[in-house]
């Protein structure tokens, strides 16, 4: 229709570059420059380190040869691939059934189950792992369930990762499932297909891209996660912990750079494959589609409720055990209750200051990140002309997704602490943590913003342009209010992730900027599991409170800004 023509116009008719366009380009250029400094240059610093020896001489592929010929190092590649594949299969299967129950059954308490399933998002990945030790360790109360196997090792890693990535996978599958056309089911039924046949011919094909996408996301998250294997990995080495070991234990930054490059490979492959598949995905929902509405079936609903209850109990149990363990005096010999483990001043990790720093850092990340990312997305989506710049931007914003946090953190040390770098003054400050975190979570936030912006007709821009209203007024008066829900979602996403992230910031914090999530790691490392659990609980409570606030705000603001959506 009309917008399509408007879209094509710049290519055909030479668009006259107005002063307004220069402002747009200026801002877009500034954001591109930010991404250049925040991701491209640090990555270059990291990659070049992999081809150098300790004194900075170029050594070609020597470091890589050493990596692949040292069995203790190369073994980690196989280990990482193994546990990531197993965990991915398990978590996608579980999340699939859970999502199926939430979208295709008539069971009760759907909202409750949905809420419970999202709890792990509020945790640093270290926390489920710590809980697993209290449950399944030598002194665990569920250890007998392992039949003599050890929690420390692949079993523990798989269990921890499944819990950690469950909500991420669930959300993707649920979105795929909610886009189904009831008419297909009616057709299937009237053609005489039973429920099983319908499942395989209608349901599965309809969500196959969603499933594959969920699989890739899970795989990438797991192979790059460092919290779970760090805590329960035992002697089972994986790439993510190897980066840490090389850097922290052996001060071998060159080898650390090599391992983090090896870690980049599966992440990039998964990412590229996902992008290609996304393009193949065609709209299932046409204008004539009828949303699927499940019909009650007592037996099926009961089975689904039982399944969700089981998964729900595990998730709530993980959080409950962490809370309980943080309140117990001396596990397992003295189970009387105490708040002593919440006195962080005597422990590693920076005490309560680290908690306050985390809240500060997360708030800054949410505020600044949302402004930068949303503005950037707006300009990429709505500005005219300047195709090369916009294309470059689109490439830049995708990069952070493919870079594991550990690699990013390491890259930041090399880049920002270089004495010749004019940005050197940022090193060891809170702003560098904010920059790093915004960059780390840039891609998903950007995509959220783009999705919201795509729903707004480009006519708004055209109309205001013809009325001689500058674009920034349209942006402020039309675009931003319409996109309030998406903006809140982005700031929420940034805040929660900034609270829970460990991997990138573990190399960057300083005495004044110790963070709560890193404190969990350090306290666990020092064997202070109860205090580690206590700090983990504080993070969950804070992220949870932010989520509640988000829910209240969304509801309130949506009523005021989204009334136009209703007729």
């Amino acid at each position, binding site marked *: 229709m009309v917008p399509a023509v408007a879209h094509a116009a710049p290519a055909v008719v030479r668009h006259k570059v107005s002063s307004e366009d220069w402002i747009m380009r200026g801002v877009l250029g500034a954001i591109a420059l930010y991404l250049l400094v925040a991701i491209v240059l640090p990555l270059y610093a990291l990659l070049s380190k992999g081809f150098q020896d300790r004194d900075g001489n170029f050594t070609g592929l020597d470091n890589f040869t050493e990596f692949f010929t040292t069995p203790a190092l190369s073994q980690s590649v196989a280990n990482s691939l193994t546990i990531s594949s197993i965990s991915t299969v398990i978590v996608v299967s579980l999340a699939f059934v859970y999502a199926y129950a939430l979208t295709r059954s008539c069971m009760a308490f759907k909202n409750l189950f949905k809420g419970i399933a999202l709890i792990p998002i509020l945790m640093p990945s270290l926390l489920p792992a710590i809980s697993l030790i209290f449950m399944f360790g030598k002194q665990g109360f569920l250890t007998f369930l392992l039949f003599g196997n050890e929690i*420390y090792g692949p079993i523990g890693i798989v269990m921890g990762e499944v819990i950690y990535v469950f909500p991420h996978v669930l959300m993707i599958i649920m979105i795929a499932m909610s886009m189904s056309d009831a008419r297909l089911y009616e057709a299937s039924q009237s053609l005489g297909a039973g429920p099983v046949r319908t499942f395989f011919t209608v349901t599965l094909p309809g969500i196959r891209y969603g499933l594959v996408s969920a699989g890739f996301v899970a795989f990438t998250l797991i192979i790059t996660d460092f919290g779970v294997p760090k805590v329960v990995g*035992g002697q089972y080495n994986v790439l993510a912990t190897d980066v840490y070991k090389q850097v922290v234990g052996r001060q071998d930054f060159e080898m650390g750079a090599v391992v983090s490059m090896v870690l980049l490979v599966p992440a990039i492959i998964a990412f590229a494959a996902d992008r290609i598949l996304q393009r193949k995905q065609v709209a299932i929902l046409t204008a004539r589609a009828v949303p699927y509405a499940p019909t009650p079936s007592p037996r099926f609903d009961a089975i689904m409720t039982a399944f969700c209850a089981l998964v729900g109990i595990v998730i709530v149990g993980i959080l409950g055990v962490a809370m309980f363990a943080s309140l117990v005096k001396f596990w*397992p010999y003295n189970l009387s209750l105490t708040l002593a483990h919440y006195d962080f001043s005597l422990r*590693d990790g920076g005490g309560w200051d680290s908690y306050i720093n985390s809240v500060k850092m997360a708030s800054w990340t949410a505020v600044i990140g949302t402004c930068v990312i949303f503005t950037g997305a707006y300009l990429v989506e709505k500005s005219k002309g300047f195709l090369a710049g916009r294309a470059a931007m689109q490439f830049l914003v995708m990069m952070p997704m493919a870079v594991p946090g550990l690699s990013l953190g390491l890259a930041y040390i090399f880049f920002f602490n270089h004495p010749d770098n004019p940005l050197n003054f940022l090193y060891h400050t809170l702003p560098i943590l904010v920059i790093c975190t915004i960059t780390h979570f840039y891609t998903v936030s950007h995509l959220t913003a783009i999705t919201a912006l795509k729903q707004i007709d480009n006519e708004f821009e055209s109309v205001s342009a013809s009325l001689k209203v500058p674009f920034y007024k349209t942006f402020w008066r039309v675009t931003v209010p319409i996109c309030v829900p998406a903006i809140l979602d982005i700031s929420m996403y940034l805040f929660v992730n900034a609270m829970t992230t460990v991997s990138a910031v573990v190399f960057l914090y300083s005495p004044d900027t110790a963070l709560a999530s890193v404190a969990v790691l350090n306290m666990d490392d020092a064997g202070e599991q109860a205090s580690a659990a206590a700090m983990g609980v504080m993070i969950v409570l804070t992220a949870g409170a932010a989520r509640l606030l988000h829910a209240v705000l969304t509801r309130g603001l949506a009523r005021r800004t989204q009334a136009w959506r209703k007729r």
Partner: protein
Amino acid sequence: MKLIKQLTTVAASGLMVLGLGAGGAFAKTNLLVYTAIEADELSMFKKAFEADYPDINIKWVRDSTGIVTSKLMAEKANPKADIVWGLAATSLMMLGNEGYFQGYAPKGLDKLDKLYYDQVNNPPQWVGQRAWIASVCFNTVEAGKYKLPLPTSWADLTKPVYKGHVIMPNPNSSGTGFLDVSSWIQLMGEEKAWKYMDALHTNIARYTHSGSKPCKLAARGEIPIGISFAYRGAKSKNAGAPIEIIAPIEGIGWDLESFAIVKNTKNLKAARALADWSVTKKAMVIYNREYAVVAMPGIAKPVKNFPPGILSKMIKNDFAWAAKNRIRILNKWRDRYDAKSEPKKK
């Protein structure tokens, strides 16, 4: 419009509340001190030092030996620290070889035992404060469950009865772990020591990243036996853990918590003040509260729950040899033991 105004106000006031600046303490010199001393002792040291030097404000960067060393290494091109304080002498020597430090003889150095500070450079680049000594933590409750006898020697730990019941720190990530390995090699000689570690390896349940963790795990009953260090053991025992702390009869490894002033520090005066203070009797008495062996002779009193006779069991430690051979030993160790699931390579 009203809504947006409100939002802006909320955001603006939020920004003000968050305020990035730290504020306060303008007149004082901020001394950035990198340390590996356990977190629960730091505030005590800070208070005692600042009472004597009120115009200096200590800022700690506290982490485990491995992390502090790697942080320092990472910042080699552009050091941030003013002084490194309470870090393993072996680590300081390694950093010293990179030209990290400047020599300084603190006032009163002559009162220290010559064993405990740098004898290669004059003035010394590093000065030891107190010794941190290997020990074995043994959980009596868990040992009872598995009917494990109390080990008294390193050799005991290789007996089949302890299979899967021993944890030690990975020397590649923990200073304590390296201290153990280096002491075994110095005690037994290279060949015998690796044979010993082969035998021990079959009994090890897993290697940890931190040196204090094995003892804390033993204290919590996660494992009956943890190879760790005496201070951690005593601390856990004082907290009520059912553990015995053992100093194996063959001799035990140790390292020195030491300090060294960073070469181009902007706060040289304050760094030297801390160095001077650190070799005073007052400081030594504080060191002794938790550690049994300090650098000034005649000060140390026995510390509660330290294994008896620990002083006589300390090996003759050749720091220079350890620092020089560190990477070689770590690589060899990694190739032999780092992946437990792998078949062992000889």
